[in-house]
């Protein structure tokens, strides 16, 4: 006879099992659901471009048009970013590449549980898989933009600093920060549908507040605000690795990495606490 897992359902079980067991359970369930996460990602990815003429081409067109608009605004003098040493399209694309990971990630992950619909209330499965799998779309967009960036670099004949090979590593804290916030926002959307609108507003606003499309000014209120914004540090750090070859503010950068990790771990655990209540609250 095969060995059978015994499952126990009781109120507040997750609060009673102790700290070590909590994290063990989190990692084990992540390990167990990796196949589900992959399937859900494939599902989202292949369903997204069905019944569309251009299909996957949209993944390339979107960032091209976004960058095109900012290049146009810059060229026509509407949007003045001050002086930079590199051609603006290359500068903007690097920023928009890492930005995509955050903005797309935040939008899709906060919507992931509500978008799953009846599945959440009818089937018992690890709901965190939905949030993690949705981040896959952001990773795809990130990689598409990265390829675009490489092409633009080749066209302009720009040679990036050697530290650019560390970019995949530098994407990790951005990913964790986004996923952490995504865990929280996905649950919040489950309770308050308003969250979706707030997230869209928030990311649009943030695109201009965070130095994605322009360098941080050396002084002034803006510089001060950005000094305390972990996302700014992560994006500037990402760009430094391409253009500068070193981090302009190592303390701020690594501090922000640590902050991202803490945000991720906290909300991952938070999600675990709330997970049993999702089906009845959504």
């Amino acid at each position: 006879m095969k060995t059978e897992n015994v499952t126990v359902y009781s109120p507040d079980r997750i609060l009673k099992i102790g700290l070590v067991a909590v994290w063990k359970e989190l990692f084990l369930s992540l390990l167990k659901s990796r196949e589900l996460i992959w399937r859900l990602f494939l599902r989202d990815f292949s369903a997204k471009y069905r019944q569309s003429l251009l299909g996957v081409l949209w993944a390339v067109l979107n960032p091209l048009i976004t960058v095109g608009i900012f290049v146009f605004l810059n060229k026509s003098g509407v949007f003045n970013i001050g002086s930079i040493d590199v051609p603006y399209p290359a500068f903007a694309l690097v920023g928009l590449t890492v930005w995509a990971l955050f903005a797309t990630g935040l939008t899709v992950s906060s919507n992931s549980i509500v978008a799953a619909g009846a599945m959440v209330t009818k089937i018992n499965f690890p709901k965190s898989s939905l949030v993690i799998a949705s981040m896959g779309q952001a990773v795809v967009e990130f990689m598409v933009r990265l390829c675009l960036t490489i092409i633009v670099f080749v066209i302009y004949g720009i040679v990036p600093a050697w530290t650019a090979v560390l970019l995949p590593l530098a994407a990790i804290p951005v990913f964790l920060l986004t996923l952490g916030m995504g865990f929280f926002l996905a649950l919040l959307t489950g309770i308050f549908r308003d969250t979706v609108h707030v997230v869209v507003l928030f990311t649009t606003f943030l695109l201009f507040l965070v130095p994605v499309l322009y360098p941080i000014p050396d002084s002034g209120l803006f510089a001060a605000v950005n000094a305390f914004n972990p996302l700014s540090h992560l994006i500037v750090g990402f760009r430094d690795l391409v253009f500068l070859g070193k981090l302009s503010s190592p303390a701020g950068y690594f501090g922000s990495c640590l902050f991202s990790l803490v945000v991720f771990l906290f909300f991952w655990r938070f999600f675990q606490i709330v997970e049993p209540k999702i089906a009845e609250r959504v």
Partner: protein
Amino acid sequence: MENTVIKAENVSKKYCRSLKHVMLYGVHDIARNTLGLSSQSERLRDGEFWAVDDVSFEVKRGETLGIIGPNGSGKSTMLKLINGIFMPDKGRIEIKGRVGALIEVGAGFHPMLNGRENIYVNGAILGMSKKEIDKKFDEIVDFADIGEFIDAPVKHYSSGMVVRLGFAIAVHCEPDILLVDEVLAVGDVGFQNKCFNKVGELRKKGVTTILVSHNMHIISAFTINALVLNNSRATYFDSVVDAIKEYTNIFIDKQDSDIEKVCNGTDGIKFFDVAIDRRIFKPGESFVFSAKYEASVDYSDTEIDVGIYCGGDSSLYFQANNKAYNQRIDIKKGIHSLKITIKDIRINNAVAKIGIAIWAKDRTNLLFWWRIPVEFKGVDHSTGRNFLNLLYEIGD
């Protein structure tokens, strides 16, 4: 204890009526839990009520438990608790092995993806690995039997096809425990039989089954013990016959003991001196209905329906019709009498209604319709199950 697969101890679950309270309490509970405090789920707050209240039962390996009860008595909530979709607010549930739920099959389907892709996605959601699905894939496709639609996006499926595919995936994930909600009622007769066979096959393999249905015929044919839910509370019965008796008893108070005279005749015909020989039956006894009528016109080739209805929603249990037996009944002008006999009814302990309806040719006009509350008492020990008696002879 060794063989107990499902063990529910004093399980309770509360619901909230208003959406505003759901949001408020949701935030409140989450905030408490985040601070490491209990959500104090055992207390009822304003607007909350117990949907399942203090329910305990055990199911042993290979057993089939029926759950019956009126609408809104907590059956579906109980299934969701066993399935782990909801956490109990009080008490605990212990489950051994993998649970396969035929509750809302096909809930995880993505409308844009085709059947093949959805088998993999849904399989993964139900906890199957890719290897398992690869191995079972042909079997699933075979069982669903939806032909070339397997390559069409699910949004083009008929509702029957969705259920077929969903059911096929769910039963092939090798569950140790199978939860079956009313789903078997969907799909055509051919597929229903296939489903019952499959469920039977799994039971033979030692799969523990929980069956929820309003159809006492299905419950009586498939289960041995049953849980009767009423007003969120449960009573456990070792014998499904007693359970069905209890279930039908629930409706006694609600059921008007008076005869419902839905239709007593029309302009062309009047019924009088209507009599029923008995209102309480033992298994094997017969029911005789007699009446006189005065018709001012001829009603040739009428149809007479006799139905037995059980449960609060008075769902049809058995029905007989003269056309089905190729019996022609003509009602002639003038005063005549009519007698209808239903022989040898074998229904165990139940409260029911016998309905008699008389229709003009081709059911264009209802001439008569009474529903008569009756009670079946006792158990037919030769089968222990409910059946209409089938009289037949086999010659050489």
